[in-house]
């Protein structure tokens, strides 16, 4: 790929999805976009690039953005954050919301849905604590393909073995040929939709818990800040933010602060969290 084409795609992807493409990843452009060029009937990647520069068709723009995202995910990825959710954050909020009995959870950049469904299964396992509650889980992603996959909730044998305990597979999945279909009672707990994290988040409403994991690593500091501050506005005053293992707020924003001993867990800087009950609920 020509250097000026690389620069074009770098700028294009940054504007469309926030992806910061570094030059060591330029080979990815060739390997992932050549099939797209073929699929859209262009004679070559160069021909497609020319069109994208001049009059970019909407569906081609989407396909290029989707082709360049990394969708790697798994059930209960890194496991610890899910323990923290179940043992600490959930009991904390169940206490705080005892009168409204409402919780909203957002899996931002949800990929094929494993993160959102892991939360749904944990909630189902704790159904005795949430009887009479309205708990909404929303999963969003910039890739429409992946959102459709998440909605379908059908996984390969390989996918159901990554992170998913066998007891939960037995309980919540049915086997369809060599694939595994999540049952409706879990599936119906999660709503998925397209959403670009660079867009205004106001229409999504307010959340009590946001999982935003393994997506901001691809963003540069100004965009990280923009997303953090957008999320801070959508988070209820005593809400929680979970980040991925390689991610932090440190150095990017002052609106969030790490919460004590829980790795990857953040709260709003302006809020006094009840440290004692945060510590207690960890059982």
């Amino acid at each position, binding site marked *: 790929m020509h250097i000026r084409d690389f620069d074009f795609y770098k700028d294009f992807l940054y504007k469309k999805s926030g992806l910061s493409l570094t030059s060591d990843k330029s080979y990815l452009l060739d390997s992932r976009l050549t099939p797209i060029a073929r699929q859209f009937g262009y004679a070559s990647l160069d021909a497609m690039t020319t069109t994208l520069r001049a009059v970019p068709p909407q569906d081609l723009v989407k396909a290029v953005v989707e082709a360049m995202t990394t969708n790697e995910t798994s059930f209960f990825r890194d496991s610890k954050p899910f323990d923290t959710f179940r043992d600490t954050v959930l009991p904390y909020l169940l206490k705080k919301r005892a009168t409204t009995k409402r919780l909203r959870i957002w899996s931002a950049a949800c990929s094929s849905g494993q993160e959102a469904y892991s939360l749904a299964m944990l909630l189902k396992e704790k159904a005795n604590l949430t009887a009479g509650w309205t708990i909404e889980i929303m999963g969003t992603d910039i890739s429409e393909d992946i959102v459709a996959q998440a909605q379908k909730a059908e996984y390969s044998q390989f996918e159901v*073995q990554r*992170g998913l305990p066998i007891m939960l597979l*037995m309980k919540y999945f049915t086997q369809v040929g060599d694939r595994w279909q999540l049952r409706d009672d879990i599936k119906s707990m999660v709503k998925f939709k397209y959403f670009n994290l660079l867009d205004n988040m106001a229409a999504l409403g307010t959340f009590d818990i946001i999982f935003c994991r393994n997506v901001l690593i691809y963003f540069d500091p100004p965009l990280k800040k923009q997303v953090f501050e957008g999320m801070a506005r959508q988070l209820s005053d005593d809400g929680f933010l979970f980040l991925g293992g390689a991610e932090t707020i440190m150095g990017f924003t002052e609106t969030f602060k790490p919460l004590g001993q829980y790795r990857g867990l953040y709260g709003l800087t302006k809020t006094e969290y009840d440290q004692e009950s945060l510590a207690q609920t960890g059982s």
Partner: protein
Amino acid sequence: MKTCLIVDDSRVVRKVARRIVEDLGLQCDEAEDGQKAYEACEKTMPDAVLLDWNMPVMSGIEFLEKLRQMPGGTAPKVVFCTTENDLAHITRAVQAGADEYIMKPFDSDIIRDKFSQVGII
């Protein structure tokens, strides 16, 4: 150091599995069928067993049922690792006392996930 007994009638599978499990920091022993595995457990109870289903002489499920009857036989964490990949087999294994279940083909990530879920690593 924790110990793991690797039970599979294929020498190749045992070798691959052994390398993965050793990389997780466990000390490994091997058995080529359920009977040999049973005898190994009579000598020393391992902390974990990675267990194939279909083997000559004694199958994995027979071994597991016997193991759970032995003195100290409820202690080892047993992870099935088999080409049997249907719900009926999985259910039967869990009812017989399996702690986790791997459907072949497997890779090191899956073994690591499962061993960590059962608390061996």
